């Protein structure tokens, strides 16, 4: 749950207009369904990387489709 909240705070930080949609986010929802543009999407990644003090690799990023994928990436990073 903590991980999903972190993702939600990242989204609010890069695009406050999406705050009203945060309640709809489920692990199987595709990230692109949220309607962030490509720059805002990467800004969100930057926010997460800063909070987690890490960098995700390009190869890992391109394989991420859903919020669940992103959450498990974050959890793996935290455990590492």
């Amino acid at each position: 749950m903590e991980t999903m909240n972190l993702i939600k705070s990242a989204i609010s930080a890069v695009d406050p207009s999406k705050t009203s949609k945060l309640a709809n986010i489920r692990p199987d929802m595709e990230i692109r369904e949220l309607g962030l543009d490509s720059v805002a999407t990467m800004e969100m990644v930057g926010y997460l990387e800063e909070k987690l003090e890490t960098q995700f690799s390009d190869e890992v990023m391109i394989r991420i489709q859903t919020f669940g994928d992103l959450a498990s990436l974050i959890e793996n990073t935290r455990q590492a």
Partner: protein
Amino acid sequence: MSTPYRPDVSTKPATVVEALRRLRGVNDLGHTYLDNAAKPTFFSFDALNEAAEQRGRRLLARGLKKGDRVGMVLSQPKDFVISFLGCLYAGLVPVPMYPPLSFGKLDAWADGALRILLDAEASLLLTDAQLQNVLWQVVPKVKSLRDLLTVEKLDTVAPVTGDLPEVAPGDLCFLQYTSGSTSAPKGVMVTHGNLMANSWAIAVDGMALVPFAETAVSWLPLYHDMGLIGFVITPLVKGMAAVFIPTLLFVKRPNIWMQVMSDYKAQHTFGPNFAYALAVRKATDAELAKWDLSHSRVYGCGAEPIHLDTMLRFEATFERCGLKKGTIMPAYGMAEATLAMSFHPPGSQVFANALHDDGPAFVSCGRTFSLHEMGVMDEEGNLLGENVEGELVHRGPSVTPGYWKNPEATAACFLPSGWLRTGDLGFIRDGNVYITGRSKDLIILNGRNHHPTTIEWAAAEVEGVRKGNVVAFSVPGQDSEELVVVAETRPEPPAGTAENITRAVAEQLSLKVSDVVLLGAGQLPKTSSGKLQRNKTRQQYVSGELGKQGDRTLGSSGEKLTVAKHVAKSIWGRATHTASKIINRPTET
């Protein structure tokens, strides 16, 4: 301490290899490559020569010969630059390709990579350890490919010894694939002669670079002409130092751009309009108090429509950091003309002008360079005078020979008279170039080109929308371009049709639709033969004449607004207003 070595750079080199080679022996200036953690690695121009030559010799050791194409997917600036210059040392033709840039688009990205490799008939694919796993899937589909190599593996290959192939000014230097999202990829053939003509024009006429005394900073993608030619090749002709930020690092942490400008006391940088808007939006008070931009001299702006308002706001915001007035330099260019076609004179205030008294104002992109010409052409190919709108055309030594193995596309743009048709609409006033629109209807958002058809197709799949009756275009928004979709619907379309269009475009293309206009059948402007008129639809939208009977919602927010209100809020109103204060003010040079 002895004075550092400085070669003579007062003459134009004949090839990129000559430009690079003559910097051998310069040990105190060169390239600084930041990695994803912003950790710098420095290569002096001397070390860069050595690293590039060794990489070129290793590529030749894999059985490649002069003229063979090498596909390159390298996201780290250090890998990219050394490999690119290594290919040139060895007479090989690099084909820069874009690395994956976002989430979950593996298939679409791999398909794009495949189409470029097939078109270029690449012999080798060069990548890094991270990306090789996702690239192996395309290798069996490209018959010309003999090998996929990582730079890590290449560095273990024994280099060939002896003479390297001779490189001549007329030789193909690299293939620049244009970034259209749907059409078949087209590779612009850029010769060494083109590159030296354009780099010299930029360095001498455009920016008056001071040899061995200036530093450039770039986060621009290196697979694209603005980053590659502007920051890798042009600085070589005058021994300008360069600092490279990985593109993704900038997108994730936009403030690193001005941070690095300040840290390195840099003079030069470049970015599309959206990046300047982002820089203004993201800079914090603490950063503005800390950054020192007093050394900087030229902030180039190109690649997408330039908003005067954004430029002025950038200058005003960073004045606190010592940014001087007149550092913003609007520029106009395209890959088919190598890179640059016109530059606003650095050090003078950016300004805008309208074609007609009551029309919208456009930012001046300055004049073309010596040996180069700009013109305006009508649809029949007649040259028009100043102050008349038409297709912008360009002529001179930077105009490339055309598209790789594509005589039809080449003949359509490269006229026998030497003029290059740019596909852009514009006018010339007092020698200054103004771009008013894209005759190719290209939509440019966040610096990337999108064909309207892909967006229109995505919207047409939404229930209630009349297939084939959708038009997409961009308009100036608050500080950069915004996407608008206009669709005719069936009678009584389902509730939420506008929101569904927004969602469909976001899901399929990761693009944000800022406004959706729904019209009844037959309300979109069409030609007598029934063809949709995108430009006319856009004009009607901007002037508030479009779809008076239509149901109109402001895209994702669902907020209802009248056309007139929205247009009044948009940059059109403000740009024209601001410009009216600037028009007729003499340019400060």
